[in-house]
């Protein structure tokens, strides 16, 4: 039996990765909406808005794919955690400034009446996903990941070296 933590890691990967794939794919089909959504936060200078608006959907999709497949799990989870942190800060700042915008989390975006009522839920959701991402950064090795095939350890660990995250899978 693999440690419970590795199974939990698999679950976290699928949940967080699935959310990113959905969010990224929905935005990729409509880049202008994505740019508008970024613009609506009024946080970034105009010169950066467009770049971020185009980059986010692609980055989200690739981070999602990497997590679901378990490729570069730690790196993908670290980017995922940073993105969620940025989104939480963004939504909180919009909330604090009394603005009413669609968070543009899954496409869409821009002004929306009564959007503030969903801010608490959006922040809670992103915080939950941030925790799952942080867990993956910490745990690293998970069940059924491509990492465990790509970076399989073939030599026994040195007895005096501390175990690192890519330790052996007991059985595949």
């Amino acid at each position, binding site marked *: 039996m693999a440690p419970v933590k590795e199974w939990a890691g698999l679950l976290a990967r699928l949940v967080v990765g699935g959310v990113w794939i959905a969010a990224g794919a929905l935005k*990729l089909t409509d880049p*202008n909406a*994505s*740019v508008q959504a970024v613009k609506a936060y009024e946080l970034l200078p105009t010169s950066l808005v467009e770049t971020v608006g*185009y*980059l986010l959907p*692609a980055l989200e999709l690739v981070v999602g794919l990497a997590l679901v497949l378990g490729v*570069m799990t730690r790196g993908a989870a670290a980017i995922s955690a940073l993105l969620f942190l940025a989104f939480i800060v963004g939504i909180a700042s919009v909330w604090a400034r009394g603005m009413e915008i669609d968070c543009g989390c899954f496409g869409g975006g821009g002004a929306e009446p009564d959007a503030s009522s969903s801010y608490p839920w959006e922040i809670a959701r992103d915080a939950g996903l941030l925790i799952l991402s942080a867990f993956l950064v910490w745990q690293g090795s998970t069940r059924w990941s491509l990492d465990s095939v790509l*970076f399989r350890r073939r030599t026994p660990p*040195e007895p005096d070296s501390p175990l690192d995250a890519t330790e052996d899978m007991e059985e595949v």
Partner: protein
Amino acid sequence: MSTKNAKNAKDAKDAKSAKAAERAERAAALLREQKRRERRRNLITGGVVAAVLAALVVVGILISKSNEIEAPAAGSSDFGVTIGDPDAPHQLVIYEDFLCPGCGQLEAQSNEQLAALAADGAVHVEYRPFNLLSRLGDYSGRAASAFGVVLEKSGPEVAKEFHDLLFEDQPEEGEEPYPDADWLVEKAVEAGADEGAVRPGIEQGVTDFADRATAEAQQAGVSGTPTVILDGEVFNGTVDELLDELE
């Protein structure tokens, strides 16, 4: 004799332990070599995987770019109204929805300035209303349709004025009931339309004009309002930045 024997035995023992040490050393070296190769392999694999992922992000960005808006040039749509000289140095297309608060804001901040700039020959502007917010009720569709009726019956100048009046007195998004046909007719007459000419059309509600204008906007890839296209490129800056560009 006995000392010689003892010495031989000691030599044999030394040789044995030396051999053992040598074996252990060889095994350790082999292990080190294996580990070195493994680290190298993992490094290469990691590099390749990272490169593939980065390439995928770039592909994604390119896909995003390919989904960009390609709108007909200012003055070339059947569903808008233009102001200014067609040969002006700047061409501006504004897609909007009569209900969208962002459009109301844009109009409040730019309408008069754009009219003045257009009159000076600095910019050629086309306003293209369409029905984006159909999910929030029928006002967007009815207002865009009424705009079509006024454009057809009373000409572009009256239609531009009607457009301005609708934004000046814009209803709150999502707050039904929305203004009715009588209100729209009133605005049209205020803009200079002949009531008898526009009332029948406006009372029809959502017309083919709005549907086709919406289809054209969607065809161009416009999915939000206001969408401002300056000289063929989507403009994402503020209204002040837009006006600065034009001055």
